[in-house]
């Protein structure tokens, strides 16, 4: 699978094309996956491990809880409205608020104990590194 490399002036079309390939893949749309649950997740990998990304605007980092139980990673939290006061009326009301929780099963080769999470500009990024035992190793050939 091609790694996303954005040398070009226009990285977004490349990224959109790569992400979209999965939306039409029947292996991921026949009920086995979590489509429709909040927050939608994108899962990537790189040399270090797996990277889980979610767009969750307007959260307070202290309201995001990430827990690992064995191979299961759980992301939960609550989005509370930041605005105060009682308006006299609403012209648009499209954003949603409330609690969310999602779990995700990872393969055995990841080390949940060393997982890291970062929340920036409303995007949550959880990185779970590969377990030492799953990393490729060089085997020295000994002269016989």
């Amino acid at each position: 699978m091609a790694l996303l490399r954005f040398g070009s002036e226009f990285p977004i079309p490349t990224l959109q094309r790569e992400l979209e390939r999965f939306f039409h893949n029947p292996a991921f749309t026949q009920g086995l996956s979590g489509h429709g649950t909040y927050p939608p997740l994108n899962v990537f990998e790189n040399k270090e491990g797996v990277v889980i990304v979610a767009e969750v605007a307007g959260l307070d980092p202290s309201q995001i809880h990430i827990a690992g139980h064995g191979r299961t990673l759980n992301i939960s939290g609550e989005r509370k409205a930041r605005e105060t006061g009682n308006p006299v009326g609403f012209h648009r009301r499209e954003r949603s608020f409330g609690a969310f929780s999602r779990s995700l099963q990872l393969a055995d080769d990841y080390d949940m104990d060393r997982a890291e999470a970062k929340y920036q500009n409303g995007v949550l990024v959880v990185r779970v590194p590969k377990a030492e035992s799953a990393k490729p190793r060089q085997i020295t050939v000994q002269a016989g």
Partner: protein
Amino acid sequence: MTAQEMTAKEKQELSAAQEKTRPGRYYMPDVDIREFPDHLELWADMPGVSDKNVHITLENGVLSLEGRVDTDLYEGLSPLYTEYNVGNYFRQFSVHESVDCAGIKATMRNGELQLTLPKVEAAKPRKIEVQVS
């Protein structure tokens, strides 16, 4: 009492009438517009957009909001499984003449854009004292 559960909704792509000349697809941010006696508040969700990459313009009574997402995060990553697409955001609103355009203020925090649109003095509610004749 347990909090209301959030549900995922599909991101809305920009319609053809508003299509942009920049490459890539644009999405419409989810917006709340709340009216108060002396001002309006506009909140827009643009996850992935930093305060430096949000552009707000007001021209001929049309307020345009554009947010460009940061793609650095995806450099060197290989997708395994995806549920949503990523793109820039764009949305326009006609601004009523009761809004004091010079007084509009914007802040961006955690992917959440907040605009405060004060009303011009003439549009603010006022109390009229009834005089005893």
